[in-house]
C-alpha cells in the first residue's frame, strides 16, 4: 500500500471502520512508514482534543418551552404554503371571470350570419334593449348611433 492510499484510509482506520483486509494493509504500511505513523499520531491527538469538547446539558427551560408550545392538531396553524394556495385560488377566479367575459362577448356578438360591425353594435344595443323607449338610455344610444351612421 502506498502513502497516498494509506492517508485516505487513516481516518476510517482510527475509527475502526475498515474491513479486516484494509486494516491489515494499513497496519502493514504503518509498520515501515514513519511519516504516516506521524500522521496517525496527529489525527489521534485531534480526536483526543475533540473528546475534551464540553458535553452540554439542556437548559431547564427547554422542557417547559417545548411543552407549552405543543399544539393539538386541530388548532395547528396552516402550513406555510397556505398563503400561496390562497393567491393561486384568487388568480384562478380572475381567469374564470375573464373567460366567462370572453365567452359571453363572443356569444353576444356572434349571430351566425354575415353581419358587419354595425350589426354587431345593433345586436348589442338593439336586441338586448329592444324595445328601447326613446327617453331611455337605450333609446338615446340608438339615436346617437343612427346619427353616426347617417353621417
Amino acid at each position: 500500500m502506498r502513502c497516498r492510499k494509506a492517508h485516505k484510509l487513516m481516518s476510517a482506520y482510527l475509527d475502526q471502520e475498515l474491513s479486516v483486509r484494509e486494516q491489515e494493509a494499513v497496519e502493514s504500511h504503518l509498520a515501515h512508514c514513519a511519516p504516516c505513523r506521524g500522521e496517525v499520531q496527529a489525527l489521534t491527538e485531534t480526536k483526543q482534543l475533540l473528546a475534551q469538547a464540553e458535553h452540554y446539558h439542556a437548559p431547564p427551560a427547554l422542557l417547559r418551552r417545548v411543552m407549552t408550545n405543543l399544539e393539538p392538531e386541530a388548532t395547528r396553524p396552516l402550513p406555510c404554503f397556505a398563503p400561496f394556495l390562497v393567491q393561486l385560488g384568487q388568480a384562478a377566479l380572475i381567469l374564470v371571470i375573464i373567460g366567462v367575459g370572453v365567452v359571453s362577448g363572443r356569444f353576444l356578438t356572434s349571430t351566425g350570419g354575415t353581419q358587419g360591425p354595425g350589426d354587431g353594435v345593433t345586436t348589442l344595443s338593439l336586441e338586448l334593449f329592444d324595445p328601447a323607449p326613446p327617453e331611455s338610455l337605450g333609446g338615446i344610444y340608438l339615436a346617437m348611433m343612427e346619427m353616426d351612421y347617417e353621417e
Partner: protein
Amino acid sequence: MTPDPLHLIEQFKAGDLSSFEGLVRVYQDRIYNLCRHLLGHPQNAEDAAQETFLKAYRNLKRFTPEASFYTWLYRIAVNTCLDFRKRPFFESLFKRSAEGEESMAVEPVDERSPERLYESRQTGHIVQRSLQAMSPKLRVVLVLKEMEGLSYQEIAELLKISLGTVKSRMARARGALQTLLKKNMEQK
C-alpha cells in the same frame, strides 16, 4: 429508571399526549448537545432543540417502530440545525457568538483543580470555535462521530448519504479541523 422510549411512543399513539413529556426528558440532553455543537450559540441551540421536539411531536404518529427512534429524532435535529444556519439573521448572531460565550446550560459539577478546569475550558472553546469555522457538511459528520459516537453506517443512514461519502467527508473534516485548531491555538 429511564422509561422505555418505545413504550412512551406507543402510549402517545394510543392518545396519551402527556407521554411526549417523557420522551423530551429522555432525549433533551443529547439533542441539545448535538444542536449546541452544530450551531455554537446556546440560544440558537435551544431554539433548534425546541423546534426539533415540536416537529417530532407533529410527526410522531407517523413514526414506525421498525426504524430507530433516536436516528429519526437525530435526523430531524440535524436538518433543523442545517436549516437554521441558512436563516439570514443567523450570520450576525454567529459572529457575536464566535468568541466563546458562557454557556446558558447547566454545567455539571467538575472537581478538577481550577487550573486544569481553566485549561480544559480554554481548549474546549478553541475546539468549539474551530468546529464552527468548518463547513456545515463536514462539521455534521465530525460531530455525529466524535461527540455522539455514531458509526459510519448510522451517519450514512441519518444523513441519507453513501458510506463512501461519510468516509470521504470524515477524512476531509479531520484535515480541516487540524488546520483550524493549529491556527486557533497559535492565536490563543
